[in-house]
């Protein structure tokens, strides 16, 4: 009796997990199907003509500006991540281990900047960029993305470096190492999972952005999330290309997240436990 009751609950739990898995996979599988469907059969169920598939959408995508936009995305998101890490990780370290009475203000500011609605300051940013000639440049977008990601980088390197024992740092400093050497050789390796996770999250934030790119790019630096909208034209919505472009936009980040998965869990664990 008891064992049966247990099994029932166990099976209900499994069914729930399967249900969630289906919910998670459905849009992905659907996007893959759409990307192989010819326009003429888009609107009939896949099971009524499962073999009517085409490679045409690949050609459409290759001939469009989309690959170029993917390159722009890669350069800007990658560049911004590198810059934000260079600037943000030492700052996180300084906040974690330095002495300051303004730490609370600093943490509040970081969160606030992360949370500020872009719609308000994108116009001032546009006007600023106009005056210093950064509209439609890689550097302009990299700078914007760096600021978008910097609060997260500082915040999470702060939390992961706070866990590095003070004794370790003091020992190194007493041995005559400079502060930067200590940071570079002692603290950074000790906080590696957190740093890796931070870099991945920063890259994802920049890679996902739609709004900034919409406003401060023109033809030369348009990023992939904006370029995808070009498949919505008057008289037709090219669902096949849209689905394929969505997949192309996601694919580069999938291996990253699967590889960095465990680091993220570790570092978030740090953030949650404090």
């Amino acid at each position, binding site marked *: 009796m008891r064992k049966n009751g247990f099994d029932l609950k166990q099976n209900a739990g499994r069914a729930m997990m399967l249900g969630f898995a289906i919910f998670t996979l459905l*849009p992905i599988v659907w996007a893959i199907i759409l990307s192989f469907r010819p326009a003429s059969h888009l*609107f009939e169920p896949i099971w009524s003509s499962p073999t009517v598939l085409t490679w045409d959408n690949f050609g459409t995508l290759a001939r469009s500006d989309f690959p170029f936009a993917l390159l722009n995305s890669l350069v800007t998101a990658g560049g911004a991540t590198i810059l934000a890490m260079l600037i943000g990780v030492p700052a996180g370290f300084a906040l974690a*281990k330095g002495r300051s009475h303004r730490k609370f203000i600093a*943490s509040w500011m970081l969160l606030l900047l992360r949370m*500020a609605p872009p719609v308000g*300051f994108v*116009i001032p940013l546009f006007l600023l960029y106009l005056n210093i000639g950064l509209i439609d440049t890689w550097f302009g977008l990299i700078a914007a993305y760096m600021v978008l990601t910097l609060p997260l980088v500082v915040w999470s390197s702060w939390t992961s470096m706070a866990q590095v024992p003070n004794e370790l740092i003091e020992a190194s400093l007493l041995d005559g190492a400079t502060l930067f050497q200590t940071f570079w050789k002692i603290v950074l390796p000790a906080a590696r999972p957190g740093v890796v996770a931070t870099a991945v999250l920063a890259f994802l934030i920049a890679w996902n952005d739609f709004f900034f790119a919409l406003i401060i790019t023109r033809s030369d630096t348009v990023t992939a999330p904006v370029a995808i*909208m070009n498949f919505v034209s008057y008289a037709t919505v090219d*669902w096949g290309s849209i689905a394929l472009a969505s997949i192309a936009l996601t694919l580069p980040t999938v291996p990253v997240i*699967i590889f960095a998965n465990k680091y993220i869990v570790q570092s978030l664990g740090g953030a949650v436990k404090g």
Partner: protein
Amino acid sequence: MGVQTLFQRGYNRMLLPAVVAVGVFAILPLVGMIGLAFTDFHLIKGWRGEWGLHNFMRMTQDRRFLASINVMLFLSVFGVLFQVTMGTLVAVGLEKIVPKWRFMRGIFVVPFVVPAVAVALIWLSLFTPTLSPINAFFDIFGITVPAFLTSEYGAIFAIVIADTWASFPFVMLLILAALQGISSDLEEAASIDGATKMQVFWRITLPLLKPALLMVALFRFIETLKHFPLIFIMTNGGPGRTTQATNYYAYIQTFQSSKVSYGAAIAVFLFAIAAVISFYVARANARITDA
């Protein structure tokens, strides 16, 4: 201690680049936004020289703005509720129900990396009755799936569902991390004492997860206040105006009605909400860190 003071200048030097970068590229535009909110910049007519509180006065009488707050709260409250529930269930399920299905973890994490624009486009296709395989599937049994995007609450829930899909993995990852931090001794002790699995979950695990749950809920709440691509692509704010959340309304005022200053005033309002919530997050975090 003494060493730390000695090295304080070094710390300050490491902090400086971040302060400068934030100052130029974030604070400057923010100051600009607040400045705009007190003036009357119009995309077409330019400046007309009026300045003061008029944009904020206008907000108190603007029915659309007030309605947009409702929409925003609806989207945020239900979005966070769904995401946190599902994310927690999946995380707990992965640890306790199907610990051997390791591949599942990889599946659940994928939506996390799908860019918002792609999320919106794929879900738009799933919610378009003539295109959607879901509708076609239920048609086989003679069941007509209602058209989500054409009814007031349907459209809001369509956005909530798409957002839940995209964001539950974030919650899941955070809760997984928190679960690993909970020592299994407590749970084992409880089950030896005769508690059922359910009781262990409700009485032991969940209370221990509370700080993590609160943190992730607040984080997600703020993010949902900034919804843009999902509304822009899936509903255009429709049907009628029923999915014009405040952030989207600020966008419409700025770009479609050309009233940059009014849009900026609405953004300042959102900024104030974010300031209050982030204050509490920062305080909660400071408590956890100090403890």
